[in-house]
């Protein structure tokens, strides 16, 4: 890593960032083209969809900001991209002409709470189990964990959610299976509302966690068992290190590389992964908004959600590439 490599590393980083920007631009262009393919003038569609909840003035303003009187490419595309960059995502059909960006922003916290908590639990348990399974391949832990992970890996998380509702909400009556808060004023005070909210979180979080945990186990196990056969582990064993010393000093660090990459990548899919589960539990996040927009064919909201999903995925990929470069200098 002496002198000359600094420039190469900088060049590498620049290329990664350029590629991410290009992908994001492609997401925006796709968004733009899809929206224009639908028959009808987008501004008039807005009028029809919003049913007079929107004023003529708003539509004229929208026509201008989208540049609908100018040619499709490049003028309209350019004004669409610049409007998007300024956070203007248009107005919703279904929600009485509300700004799409506002609609999305107010739904994000609920999704982040659900998916973030689930990721945290899945990463902790999944990676730990995967490392144990990979370290002792063919052992009891390995066989059981790998079998269950494969099964969970092929199970749609929303179906797990439905099963959880049947079992713990309908039959046993232990936990609520619908919404984020109980209806009515059953819970008074901050603490009461907080514990009520927490009880509503348990089943959806469990469903998303179970959906995620399989891949963490599989990747951590594969990374670990790749490392176990490396020469330096044989050397370490020959040096007389104990099992624990080998695990912590040599195996763990090297096995973490693909795991960290997977975790970073997955953070981009946090929102997308929770969509179906949210719809099962009527959890008031981006997922439920997606379903409402799909049912009402509320295209501006759908486009806004696509942009959000695309941007978070591209950003997570960018982070993963950058982190990988830091952790493994060979890539540079």
């Amino acid at each position, binding site marked *: 890593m002496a002198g000359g490599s600094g420039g190469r590393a900088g060049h590498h980083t620049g290329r990664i960032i350029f*590629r991410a920007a*290009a*992908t994001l631009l*492609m*997401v925006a262009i796709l*968004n733009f083209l*899809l*929206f224009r*393919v*639908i*028959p009808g003038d987008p501004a008039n569609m807005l009028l029809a969809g919003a049913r007079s909840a929107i004023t003529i003035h708003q539509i004229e303003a929208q026509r201008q900001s989208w540049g609908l009187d100018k040619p499709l490419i490049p003028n309209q595309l350019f004004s669409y991209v610049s409007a998007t960059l300024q956070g203007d995502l248009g107005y919703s059909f279904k929600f009485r002409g509300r700004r799409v960006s506002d609609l999305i922003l107010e739904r994000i916290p609920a999704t982040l709470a659900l998916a973030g908590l689930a990721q945290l639990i899945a990463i902790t348990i999944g990676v730990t189990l995967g490392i144990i399974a990979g370290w002792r*391949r*063919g052992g009891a832990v390995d066989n059981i964990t790998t079998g269950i992970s*494969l*099964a969970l*890996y*092929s*199970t*749609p998380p*929303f*179906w797990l959610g*439905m*099963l959880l*509702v*049947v079992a713990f*909400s*309908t*039959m046993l009556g232990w936990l609520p*299976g*619908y919404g984020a808060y109980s209806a009515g004023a059953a819970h008074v005070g901050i603490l009461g509302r907080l514990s009520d909210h927490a009880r509503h979180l348990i089943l959806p979080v469990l469903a998303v966690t179970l959906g995620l945990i399989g891949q963490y186990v599989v990747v951590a196990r594969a990374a670990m*068992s790749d490392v176990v*056969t490396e020469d330096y582990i044989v050397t370490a064993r020959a040096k007389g290190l104990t099992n624990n010393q080998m695990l912590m000093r040599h195996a763990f660090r090297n096995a973490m590389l693909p795991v960290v990459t997977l975790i970073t990548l997955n953070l981009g*899919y946090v929102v*997308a992964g929770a*969509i*179906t589960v949210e*719809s*099962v539990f009527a959890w008031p996040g981006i997922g439920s908004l*997606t*379903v409402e927009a*799909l*049912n009402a*064919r509320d*295209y501006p909201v*759908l*486009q806004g*959600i*696509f942009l959000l*999903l*695309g941007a978070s*995925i*591209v950003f997570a*990929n960018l982070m993963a590439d950058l982190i990988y470069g830091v952790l493994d200098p060979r890539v540079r």
Partner: protein
Amino acid sequence: MTNKKAITRSPPRARAIKSFLGQLLVHNSARFGLMALVVFFAMAAMPAFLVGPLQTAINAMGDFLAPPSFINPLGTDEVGRDVLNLVVHGARTSLIIALVSTVISLVVGTTVGMASGYYGRWVDVWLMRITDFFFVIPSFVLALVITPVAVGVMGRSGDILGFRPSLFVIILVIGLTSWAFVARIVRSQTLTLRERQFVERARVVGTSNIKIMLRHLLPNLVPQIAANGALVVANAIYTETALSFLGLGDPLQPSWGTLLSLAQRAGAASSGAWWYLGAPGLCVVIVSLSFVIIGNALDDIFNPRRRVIP
């Protein structure tokens, strides 16, 4: 001795297939996967023979949301249709969507990957740039916005090539958005094959590029494509189920995902109708697990290095 003689006498291709099947069936889990798939393919092949024509709200005969009984082994749904009937007919829709879209993504992925690896230079650069986009943005997310727009443009009535328009759109969208992973694998394999002697020899003799790719490269790529193809099917089933669950499927030709969506709308979970939501979900899990298992077994067979590792 006699056994050995029989093997040596059979032509090399038959021998290869026999030893391949032998290796595949050694895996206990692969045997389970194959058996499960045979059952589901039988269901998909002749649903009307097994359970009669697809029941609709008009010709439904059972009670509403009745639990499993002698007449309705898997219970009934909210309008009295037999769930077994729905699930068996759903097998046909789900498997057709999964398989046709997989064929599309394998063809696109193999073509892109092979062209990219074989021609190199600017072809490689541009094709890989496109591939990167589809690799980064998951099929489910793309399909989530493309499907409603495409269905909106084409309308929901009539049929295209024998499919209802929304199913046709779903097949096409899943197929055209999930090939990137195949393209990458095929490309890297093509890069190593390209330098091999038999390719060089073919080129010296004057074989055209297209012929080299089809006759010499493609046959050597088949193992990789097959192993990953199984995973592509599993992914397609998963994506289709999620999309249909969100209401993008066709209620007149219900897949397993559509059934789950109907169950959700009918409040099956909150009324404790476990049979209604359990049956289609279990089918999805078994079929996609079978494909994953078979894919892993194929990978094991084609990558002998893996087997050596304890």
